[in-house]
C-alpha cells in the first residue's frame, strides 16, 4: 500500500503526461492533470499518516535496500516538501487548465509534458536517499526546468534559458565531482548509511564544498544566482511559480540535507558562519535588486534569491527551533511565492505586460490579484499572522537563544527589506494612474475563476500556516537529522 502510494507520486505525473497527450479532446487534456493532482492527494495523505504514525520511512524500490538497491526516504521534512509540491502542483494545474488554452505564446502540449516531468522529478528528488539518485533527478529536473523557460520562445527566453542551462550544467558537474569524491573515499552513496558511518577529513570537506557549490547554482543562491531572475521572469507564470516555489527550493533542500545529515560534524563552525554570512549577503543583495526592478516578475524573482538566503541561517545555529524556522520558512515561501507568480500571471493575462506602473490602472479587475500579492507579500516579509512570521519568529528565537544575535538581526532586517519591495509593488497598485499605465489597452476582458482562485487560496494558505504551528511543528520534527541539536 505504501509502496503503491510512493510509486504513484513518482510515476503518476510522468505517465499522465503520456496519457494526456493521447486524450482526444482539448478539454480532457486540460482537466487530466487536475484530476491527477487531486488524486495524488490520497497517496500524500496515506504517506502522511504513516510518517506521523510510525516515524521516518525508508523504502526500497524493488525490495533491495542500500547499498545495493535504490532507497527512498521520507521523514518530516521530506513529507512537508512533498505536500508543498502536491499543493502547488494542484494550484498550477488548475491555473494552467484555464490559462494555457487562451495563451497564444505557449504551445500547450509541450508545456504540459515538461511540467509533468518536472513534477515527477521533484517528488523523486524530495524522497531520494542516495547521492547518485539525487544527481539523476537533478539532471532530470534541470532539463525540464530549462525547457520550461525556453518554451515561451523569443530571443529573450532563449538567452535566459541558455544562461540557466550553463549554470545548471556547471552545478551538475560540481555536484557530480563531489559525489565522486565521496564515493572514492567511502564507497558509499546512501545518505542514511553515510550519516551513521564514521568518516571525514579534508576530502569530505572538499566534497561537501563541491556539492554545495553545485547545488547552490541549482538553487540560485547568492552569488551564483544570476540566472534565476531572468529565467523566472521570462518563463510562463505558472512555470515561474513552480520553479521558484519548488525547483530552486529543492537545491537548498538538498544542501540542508547534506550538511545536517551525512556531513554533520564534518564542518567547522567557522564554515557554518560563512555559509550564513553568504545567506545574509544573498538576502540583502536580492532584496536590493528587487527594489530596483521595474517589472513585476523580476521583483518576484529577485525576491526568491533573497528568500533562499534565509535557509542558510540554519547552519551556525542548528537547533530544533532553527530547524522548525527554516522548514516553516521554506513551506510558506513556497506557497506565497507560487501565489505571487500566479497573481503576476493574472496581471499579464489582463494587461499584456507586467510593468509595475501598469498596476496603477484604475481597473477593478486587478483588485483580486493585488490582494493576492498583498497576502503573499505579508508572508514573504514575515509579518503576522502568516507562516513567514512564524518561521521568522522561530529563527530569531533560535538565534537569540544560541547567543548569536547577529543572525537574529539578519533575519529581522531581511524581513524589513522584503516588506520594502513588496510594498513597493503594492504602492503602485494604490497610486493614482501613472501616465504609462494607460499606454497599452487591456488585452483580456475578464479573469477566469480558475485563474483567480488558485493564487488566492495559495496566498491564504501561506497566511493560514501562521495558525498551524501547533499542528505542523511536531510533523516537521519527525526524523530530525543528526546535525540538529536539541
Amino acid at each position: 500500500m505504501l509502496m503503491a502510494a510512493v510509486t504513484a507520486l513518482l510515476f503518476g505525473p510522468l505517465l499522465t503526461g503520456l496519457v494526456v497527450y493521447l486524450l482526444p479532446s482539448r478539454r480532457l487534456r486540460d482537466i487530466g492533470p487536475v484530476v491527477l493532482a487531486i488524486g495524488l492527494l490520497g497517496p500524500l495523505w496515506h504517506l502522511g499518516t504513516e510518517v506521523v504514525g510510525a516515524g521516518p520511512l525508508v523504502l526500497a524500490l524493488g525490495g533491495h535496500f542500500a547499498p545495493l538497491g535504490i532507497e527512498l526516504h521520507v521523514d518530516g521534512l521530506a513529507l512537508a516538501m512533498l505536500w508543498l509540491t502536491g499543493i502547488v502542483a494542484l494550484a498550477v494545474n488548475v491555473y494552467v487548465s484555464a490559462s494555457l488554452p487562451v495563451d497564444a505564446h505557449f504551445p500547450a502540449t509541450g508545456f504540459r509534458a515538461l511540467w509533468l516531468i518536472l513534477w515527477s522529478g521533484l517528488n523523486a528528488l524530495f524522497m531520494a536517499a542516495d547521492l547518485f539518485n539525487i544527481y539523476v533527478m537533478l539532471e532530470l529536473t534541470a532539463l525540464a526546468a530549462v525547457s520550461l523557460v525556453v518554451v515561451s520562445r523569443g530571443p529573450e527566453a532563449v538567452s535566459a534559458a541558455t544562461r540557466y542551462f550553463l549554470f545548471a550544467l556547471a552545478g551538475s558537474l560540481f555536484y557530480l565531482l563531489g559525489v565522486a569524491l565521496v564515493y572514492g573515499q567511502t564507497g558509499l552513496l546512501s545518505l542514511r548509511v553515510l550519516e551513521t558511518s564514521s568518516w571525514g577529513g579534508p576530502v569530505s570537506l572538499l566534497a561537501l564544498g563541491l556539492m554545495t557549490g553545485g547545488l547552490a547554482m541549482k538553487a540560485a543562491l547568492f552569488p551564483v544566482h544570476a540566472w534565476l531572475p531572468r529565467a523566472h521572469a521570462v518563463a510562463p507564470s505558472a512555470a515561474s511559480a513552480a520553479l521558484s516555489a519548488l525547483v530552486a527550493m529543492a537545491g537548498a533542500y538538498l544542501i540542508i540535507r547534506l550538511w545536517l545529515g551525512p556531513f554533520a560534524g564534518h564542518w567547522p563552525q567557522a564554515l557554518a558562519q560563512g555559509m550564513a554570512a553568504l545567506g545574509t549577503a544573498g538576502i540583502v543583495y536580492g532584496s536590493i535588486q528587487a527594489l530596483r526592478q521595474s517589472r513585476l516578475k523580476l521583483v518576484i524573482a529577485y525576491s526568491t534569491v533573497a528568500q533562499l538566503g534565509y535557509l542558510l541561517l540554519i547552519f551556525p545555529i542548528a537547533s530544533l527551533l532553527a530547524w522548525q524556522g527554516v522548514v516553516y520558512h521554506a513551506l510558506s515561501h513556497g506557497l506565497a511565492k507560487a501565489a505571487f507568480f500566479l497573481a503576476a500571471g493574472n496581471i499579464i493575462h489582463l494587461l499584456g505586460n507586467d510593468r509595475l506602473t501598469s498596476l496603477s490602472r484604475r481597473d477593478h479587475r486587478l483588485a483580486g490579484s493585488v490582494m493576492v500579492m498583498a497576502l503573499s507579500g505579508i508572508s514573504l516579509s514575515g509579518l503576522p499572522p502568516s507562516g513567514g512570521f512564524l518561521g521568522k519568529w522561530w529563527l530569531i528565537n533560535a538565534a537569540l537563544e544560541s547567543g548569536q544575535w547577529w543572525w537574529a538581526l539578519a533575519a529581522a532586517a531581511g524581513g524589513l527589506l522584503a516588506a520594502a519591495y513588496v510594498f513597493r509593488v503594492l504602492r503602485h497598485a494604490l497610486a493614482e494612474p501613472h501616465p504609462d499605465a494607460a499606454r497599452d489597452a487591456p488585452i483580456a476582458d475578464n479573469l477566469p475563476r480558475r485563474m483567480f482562485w488558485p493564487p488566492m487560496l495559495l496566498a491564504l494558505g501561506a497566511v493560514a500556516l501562521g495558525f498551524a504551528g501547533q499542528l505542523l511543528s511536531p510533523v516537521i520534527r519527525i526524523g530530525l537529522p543528526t546535525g540538529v541539536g536539541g
Partner: protein
Amino acid sequence: MSLYAAMPLWVVLSSMLASVIIFALGEDRRRMRTFINLAAAVIKLILVGIMLAGVARGDQFGVRFALAPGLEFALHADSLTMLLITLSAILWLVTTIYAIGYLEDSPNRARFFGFFSLCVAATMGVASAANLFTFFIFYELLTLSTWPLVVHRGTPKAMRAGSKYLAYTLSGGTVLLIGIIGLHVIAGPLDFVHGGFVTADMAPRSVLVALFVLMLAGTGVKAAFFPLHSWLPAAMVAPAPVSALLHAVAVVKVGIFGVARLVFDVYGLELTAALGMDHLLAGIAAFTILYGSVRALGAVNIKQRLAWSTVSQVSYIGLGIGIGGPLAIVGGLAHLVHQGLMKITLFFCAGNLSEIHEVKNVDQMDGIGWRMPWTMGAFTFAALGMIGVPPIAGFITKWYLGLGGATTGAWWVIGVLVASTLLNAAYFLPMLRRAWFVAPAGGHTDRREAPPSLLVPALVTVLLAVGSGFLAGMPMSPLQWVMLISERFLQ
C-alpha cells in the same frame, strides 16, 4: 470557554468580519456596505458595553489557543483593555458615519471601508491581547491595515507619506519583535501580568535594559516619540476621517498603549524604575511634548499643525507613565481618552473646513467661524481643551499629571506642562482668532455648514470631550475609570 467569556474575540471579529464582507461586496453595493458598516459598529458598541459592565463587575474574560508550541494566541479584557476598547468602539461608530459622508462619490470606497474596519479590528486586538505575542500580531496588522488608508488618495505626496509611514512603523515593528523574542528567550511565557512578569534575576541588568529599550523604541514609533515621530506629520495627507482615527485611537494610541503594557504588565513599575527606564521614558516624553508643540507653531497647513500637536499631546500619556505614581498614571491614561476625543473633533472639523470651503491652511481661516459656526464651535472647544482650559477634558489631564509630577518630586514636570500650555495656546489661539474675529478675505461670507453626517460626529465628540472634563467626577467618566485602573495596578 463560554461564549460570554470569549467576548474579546467577538469584539475583534465583529469588525474583521465586516471588513471581509465589505471587500467581498465590491465597489458598487453602496447601501449594503453602509448598512454593514453601521451595523458592525453598533454591534461592537453593544458588545463592548456588555463587556464594560462585566469588567466593572469583576467578570473574567479570556480566550486562548496555541498557534505553535509555547506561543499562544490569547485575548483577555482587563480594565486597561476596556479603556482603549471603549474609546475606539465609540469613536469608530462616529468616524464611520463621518467617513461615509466624507467619501461620498469618491473612488475606491470598498477598499477604504474594508481596511477601515480591519484597522479597528487590529486596534481592538491590540487592546485585548493577553500576551506580547498576540499583541505583536495585532500591532503589525494595524500597520498593514492603515497603510492603504494613509495612501488612499494615491497622489505622489500621499504615496511618499505612506512609504515614510511604513518605513517607520515596520522598522519599529521589527525592533519590537526582536525585543519580544529576546524576552521570550529569557522569560519564557509572555503573558501580561499586573506588576510585570519580568524579574531582575532573569538576566543581567544590561540585557534587561537593552530589551526594554528595544521594545520602547518599537512601540515608541507608533506613539511618535521624538526622534521616531516624523511619519506622523507626513501622514496627515490621508483623508480626514483617517487622520482622525489615526491620531485619536488607532495608531498613536496603540503605540502608547504598548508602552503602557510594557511598563505596567511586562516589566512592572518597580523593575522599570529599578532599571532607570522610567526616567528615560519621562525624559523622551517631555522632550517630545515641547518639540512637537514648537514644530506645530511652524506648520501652515491646518492638518499638519494638528498632527504636530498630536506628537506633542500623545507624549503626555508617556510622561504620565514615565513619572509613575498613582496620580501621574491617572493623568496619563485619562489623556488616552481625552486626547482621543479632542483630537478626533479637531480633525473632523479640519476635514469639514477643507471639504466645504476648501480651507486648508491657517491663513485661509479668516472669518470661517461665522461661515460654519457649528463646526468651528466644536473646533474651538476642542482646541481650548487641548490647551488645557478647564472645564474641558485636557485640563483634567494636566491637573493629574502635574500633581503626579509634584508628588514624586519631579517638579520639572510642572515646568514642562506650563511651557506646553503656553505653546499650545500659541498655535491654537491664532487659529481661533482668525476664525472668529478676522473678516473673511475676498468677500466670502456665504454661510454654509457641513452636512449632518460630517457635523454630527464632530458635535458628538466635542460634547464627550467637554463632558468628560466638566463631569469628570461622574462615575464611569474616563477619569473615574482610569482611577479604577490605577488602583488595580498599584494595589
